[in-house]
């Protein structure tokens, strides 16, 4: 499929149906696709299942999605943060479902979906409340838990640079969940600092091959490079 080069985040995000599962990259501020989440907020889809390492900070777009009760369930390793008040309130009110997943299992389960695997055995979580009800077995004497793949309808990812066929490179620890989420969604939407001509990313250094990317939108460099949320909600191309 040809990569869509969008002019705005809203155009890149496109139609997201109610009830969709949406993966959102980022670990804290690093790698958070801020403008794409803002666009999802604006776009209006509800009854969402969100797969994301965190559950929103302060008044950011993910937090506001939760505040507006647009998120039915979140699959997440670390929802509780000093400023996750909107998630905390929704959770305490029983108005959001939480599937708490160890961070390594979260990454590996997303990778498994992208790689076409039906599940894997891991020692992580064995004997803990997070493995309750899951199948376990001894593998070479080590107790392990069966974990299942996590796939999505849409993945929202932030990268540093894309070329014309959607090849991506990332920047420092902002790489985090982007590369695995891009493989596990039916549609992967990426905001990048810049789009460069095809052929100008060294094929040896591509992190996400373009086959995993459906839409790309260039977003203001200061935001992307500094990871700082802009004052304005508008999106520049």
């Amino acid at each position, binding site marked *: 499929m040809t990569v869509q080069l969008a002019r705005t985040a809203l155009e890149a995000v496109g139609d997201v149906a109610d009830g969709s599962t949406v993966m959102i990259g980022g*670990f*804290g*501020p*690093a*790698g958070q696709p801020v403008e794409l989440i803002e666009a999802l907020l604006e776009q209006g889809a509800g009854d969402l299942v969100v797969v994301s390492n965190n559950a929103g900070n302060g008044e950011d777009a993910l937090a506001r999605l939760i505040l507006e009760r647009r998120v039915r369930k979140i699959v997440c*390793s*670390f*929802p*509780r*943060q000093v400023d*996750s008040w909107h*998630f*905390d309130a929704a*959770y*305490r009110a029983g108005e959001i479902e*939480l599937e*708490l*997943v*160890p*961070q*390594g*299992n*979260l*990454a*590996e389960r*997303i*990778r498994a979906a992208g790689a076409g695997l039906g599940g894997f055995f*891991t*020692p*992580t*979580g*064995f*004997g*803990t*409340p*997070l493995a309750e009800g899951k199948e376990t077995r001894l593998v070479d004497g080590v*107790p392990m838990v069966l974990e299942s793949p996590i796939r999505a309808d849409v993945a929202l990812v932030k990268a540093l640079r894309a070329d014309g066929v959607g090849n991506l490179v*990332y*920047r*420092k*620890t*902002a*790489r*985090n*969940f*982007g*590369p*695995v989420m891009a493989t596990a969604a039916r549609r992967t939407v990426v905001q990048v600092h810049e789009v460069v001509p095809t052929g100008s990313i060294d094929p040896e250094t591509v*992190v996400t091959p373009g086959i995993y990317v459906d839409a790309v939108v260039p977003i203001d460099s200061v935001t992307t*490079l*500094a*990871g*700082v949320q802009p004052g304005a909600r508008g999106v520049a191309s």
Partner: protein
Amino acid sequence: MSAETIPADARSGSPLSKAQLAARVAADIRPGSYVNLGIGLPTLVADHLPEDSGITLHTENGLLGMGPTPEPDAVDPELINAGKVPVTELAGASYFHQADSFAMMRGGHIDVCVLGAFQVSTSGDLANWSTGKPGAVPAVGGAMDLAVGAKRSVVMMTLLTKDGQPKLLRECTLPLTGVGCVSRIYSDIAVIDVGPGRRDDDGARVVETYGVTHGELEEMLGLRLGFAAG
């Protein structure tokens, strides 16, 4: 063997300060090791690793070769550690995505992981992610992966809670992070080996004490303690 790196009063009559405890943990980490330091108290260990030790720090959000906190004007929001604190990269660093980063951790490639803890059992069970309080918002992060993934997982903590309750127990009462995964506890009052070993005692063996006798430690914890093989 690493005694010369411990401040002199560490082995005298008083419990260790946080800095002394961090130095004590650092002294046991072999030169050339790959190390992951958990969020909280364990991050202090970084300040006590000798510059020429060749020790490489891993942060599970995707960096091997992590350096110290930058000057305020050099902070990069896209270069952070697992505690979301700004860090730096050292020469020889590498970046990777979350699945690769946790494969590195979970596959037994990290030599030592230093973890904080709420409770540890004498058999090496760890509880460090949930206070178990009803209504609390849970969060686990990489704790369960770190606990079981490294070649060796050790805990760094105060040995008693603020209320004076022992954090080393026969059985953890809080929700577990991992089963039988901790091999040593470094605390302000004592260094104690836990987990599989000679069991003519409650399964824990004292390596060193600070400001308490072996007997006082046993009384404080309500446990019979062995002596670590020397």
